[in-house]
């Protein structure tokens, strides 16, 4: 879906300054990210290919980025393996999932 002017990758930034570079296509499974990266939306994010989350810390965002990769990698698989989540992250990840609509 990337137009020639867009990078294949986008950068996700946590509220404590950690950055995660993921495939634009993979991150767009989140409706929220897809909308904010949409050139038509006029958000500053769409030009910079950079989305900052004031709501998500680095530890959780790292798992979110891992999920994007997991989801993208398995998008055409019939037998999708499980993704392991440390128990101490489960609730924050639930809230992140709700926020990201993913």
């Amino acid at each position, binding site marked *: 879906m990337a137009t020639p002017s867009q990078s294949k990758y986008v950068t996700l930034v946590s509220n404590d300054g950690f950055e995660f570079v993921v495939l634009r296509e993979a991150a767009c*499974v989140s409706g929220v990210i897809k909308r904010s990266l949409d050139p038509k939306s006029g958000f500053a994010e769409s030009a910079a290919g950079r989305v900052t989350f004031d709501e998500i810390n680095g530890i959780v965002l790292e798992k979110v980025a891992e999920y994007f990769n997991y989801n993208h990698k398995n998008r*055409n698989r*019939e*037998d999708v393996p499980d993704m392991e989540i440390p128990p101490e992250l489960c609730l924050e*990840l*639930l809230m992140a999932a709700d926020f*990201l609509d*993913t």
Partner: protein
Amino acid sequence: MDEEPTLPSFSRSNPIARRLDELAGHPPRKRVRENSPPPFSSDPPLFSSDDDPSADNYTSKRQKRKYRGPWFHQQPASDSPSDSSEQNQQMKGKRTLARQFDSGVWLGSDGTEEDFAEGLEHHGVPSFINPRAPIALSYDHVRKMPTLQESSTAAEDKARQQIGECLDEGTEDIILSSFNLSSISNSTISPLASFTCQPKSSAGVTFESLIPDLRIFLHSNRLTSLPASLFSLERLTLLTLRDNQLDELPPSIGNLPNIKELNVSQNKLRYLPFEILQLVSSAGKLKNARLHPNPFLEPKDLHGQTEQDIQSDLEPVPSPVFGSSQHRQDIRPSTPIHDKDKGHHWSPYWHVAYKRRTQVRFRDITGALMKGPIFPSDSDQDKTRLTPSSNQDLGGNLVPLADENDCAEPPAPRGNQISRAPSLMEVALSACSKTPQLPYLAEYLDNDSPEHLHTLLEQACAKKDSGGSKCTICKRDFIIARTEWIEFWELAKIENRTASAASPLRQMGNERDLVESIVPLIRRGCSWLCVPERGRAPVLCQDQ
């Protein structure tokens, strides 16, 4: 990116990890009943900031009024430094308040509240968590949570006592009927797993008699849900649930390898779980089943036929795959398909045949209905959500049948495409479900957090209690169903088998029996791709 984020270590030497290991084998309710400390007292690592010194900044402020929303503002709203004495003050206040409640949940240990509060002080809770949650938020939610039924009623105490006596005396008939039970917990039933027969003194006792045949009578109670432990009793041979308030049976009912008699009549069942077919498979032992009366969904063809018309109209079509191999059986031996089904996989006591299905209903990541036919059992919210033009409430128990060539078309995805991979929501909820602290997690949510997160955690709790669920297409465990549809199956007892041995045709009963032999089975899928295949048996992904 110079500083690596300090991830919480979770090695086996970690005391928390060990504690979790300890807990893993025992359901939380049991600990509460046994007056041992609840999980809180050992500070389970529920948050990413736990054990993480670098995360201090998340916890510097705890006053709820400084933040808006559940977790959107983890940074302090102002720069005022955190005041530890102020925090302590809050903790004290919380403890005082906590004592005013008698939820029953904490009764097991007098020190519970203090332990928990101290745990909070030591570890710090991420600031998006409402610091007052354990009392301000929990009470309502705790009451709603089915897993916390260990604050058991007098009725359940009586049942527990009865079960204890049966265990002591080796009585195989567990009679809990008319006990006024509104709920029954896993811990009440699970002791029966160790049931052994008392050796009989009379001579000529065979080895077989020492293998118990458990019979559990739960009829004439007010049960609305059933514990998973009931369906893990391998030696259960009879189960009567007649005259209760059940609106659904858990899929784990298919796990009873030795059940011979099952009575679920006079409940509020709209459908049965698809997994119940396991009981009438060739491996199943079911001989008698009483399924009616129940307000079961009935088929109504899209072209305005009534269910009576459909009975004659239901053409045998290839059955959907059930289990890991294909099972087919057909009413008419003349149908060519039947020839392939020699040595069918169904029980010799039952005539089993797939008939028709409804259209597939699609749900979003939170479980809200997106597309599909309205069922009479739907909430008003779900009914209004579905487009009124194409879906009408047929009234009564009627649901429309899908066209035979119906192809399940998912709605437009939120992201780029549809895949079988679980949503992040499902991944996180499943991780929540695996922690022993699941029943308490909702208490950590802020008051302002979306209501559906509470609902989802409650659903996860209820699902865990009732034994979980697997996708009926790809067999993956799931918590939030993303697809569902009703299949109408003929399920008829074969009477006088010897008399009709020459003919594979079952003997036709009277008309009422025939109609009642059609039962609605619900199938649920874990992804929008887990749908029935058009006009043919869906293929299990495991087979590929």
